[in-house]
């Protein structure tokens, strides 16, 4: 229990004094995970809707694949992206290993299946409701996808948050492809891992508390946004 108190005090001190290194890590975490989430959603939302609206050969297999990939262990993603971006790998020429872009790629791969699978479920139930109307109104499939995604925006926001939560809290993938390089690719989770390795459990726990506070804040903002006028016509 004592270490929790210690960690809490340390977390408050670090935040209150605006520790420069800490802020840098927090900002980088937010930047990487936000970008991954945005890209993951821009791929995952339409993908989920396309699977619902279009009938194509291999559709069931695609659903199966996406549902399977939802459970991808971050370390495996990290390893895959490492092999891809390594100088010995097929994309070595781009010199992306140990960069923030590599981390974004890994996190995007990690969360896109989650976003796609969850938005497929949401869009599917909505489409069951809308399908006859759309057929009656001669809405093209492409337009139907936009309409469905727009009308499901409330649920999609929650899905986006789930993706963000997964991205900002994972450590396995960014550790491997980012390398936890100080000031360059060190994010909250890799910092927690390396502080634990140094036996500085209080600092690691303090960082963990800050990470949770950030997730709390992000979710709070989303709740506020949900209640706002823009979303009230759901």
């Amino acid at each position, binding site marked *: 229990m004592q270490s929790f108190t210690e960690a809490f005090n340390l977390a408050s001190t670090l935040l209150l004094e605006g520790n420069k290194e800490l802020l840098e890590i927090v900002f980088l975490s937010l*930047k990487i995970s936000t*970008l991954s989430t*945005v*890209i993951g959603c*821009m791929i995952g939302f339409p993908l989920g809707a396309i699977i619902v609206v279009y009938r194509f050969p291999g559709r069931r297999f695609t659903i199966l694949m996406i549902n399977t990939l939802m459970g991808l262990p971050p370390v495996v993603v990290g390893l895959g992206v490492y092999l891809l971006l*390594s*100088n*010995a*790998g097929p994309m*070595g*020429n781009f*010199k992306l*290993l*140990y*960069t*923030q*872009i590599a981390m974004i790629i890994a996190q995007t791969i990690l969360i896109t299946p989650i976003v796609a699978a969850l938005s497929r479920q949401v869009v599917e139930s909505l489409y069951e409701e809308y399908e006859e109307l759309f057929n009656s109104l001669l809405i093209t499939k492409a*337009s139907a996808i*936009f309409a469905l*995604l*727009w009308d499901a925006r409330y649920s999609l926001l929650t899905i986006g948050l789930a993706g963000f939560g997964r991205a900002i809290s994972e450590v396995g993938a960014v550790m491997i492809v980012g*390398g*936890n*390089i*100080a000031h*360059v*690719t060190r994010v909250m989770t890799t910092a927690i891992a*390396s502080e*634990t*390795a*140094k*036996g*500085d*459990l*209080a600092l690691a726990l303090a960082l963990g508390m800050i990470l949770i506070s950030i997730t709390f804040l992000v979710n709070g903002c989303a709740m506020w946004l949900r209640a706002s006028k823009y979303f009230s016509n759901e």
Partner: protein
Amino acid sequence: MKRYLYFVFGISVLLYFVFTNIDDEQDHIILQATTSTDNSGFFSYILPLFEQDTSIRVDVVAVGTGQAIKNAKNGDGDLLLVHEKELEEQFVADGYGSKRFDLMFNDFILVGPVDDPANVRDADNIYKAFEKIHQKRAKFLSRGDNSGTHIKELKIWNEAEIYNLSIEQEWYFESGSGMGATLNMAVQNSAYTLCDRSTWISFKNKSNHTILLADTKNLINNYGIVLLNEDKYPKLNHSGARKLSEWLLSKKGQSAIEGFKVNNQQMFFTQ
């Protein structure tokens, strides 16, 4: 539809700026190094000094020695700083590296619970101590990750003529993790483990563990620096890597290494 297109456009602009922002053009090298050097805070002490002199940024990827060598073989590092001399020489002999230098040294130590169930405190040397642990079936935690420390530990068991450790399941365990994680586990389970001195000194979760045996004669821990083969890896930043290794080996660099202290104890020594 139109709204969505605006949205996509906005996001794309954002992404463009962020990505162009990420790729700065500062001259930098990637150093594949061992966790033992990084965890002690060595790099955050010494690299700013180097950057002051050369304005080259050094990005340290800290992994176990085995992993660092593997990464370097894949061409994912411009310079290698590890502590397993035989592997390093093999690396050069196989044509991956061009040259290896002795950089600095300290020693390994045997740490364990203060009550010392196998009484290794009274052992004459590390081999005797390992024999005692084996006889007592006292808990021993191995790194088991092919790191420099792990390889050193295996050599000691070999020298002490204790074999087939993998079947000794009731007292010999492998963590498969880095030094820090292994120490955390050893502390939790009151187990002995072999550790490099710099990690131990800077480790903060010592609890009831302490140094039980130091054997500077048999437990020397040599850190080497290895330049990569320019013909094999033409795209790496060899000039930056050469500058760092030259600087570290120079009089200035070596005295900087000597000057690095944690808790008032010198961490690394130079010849």
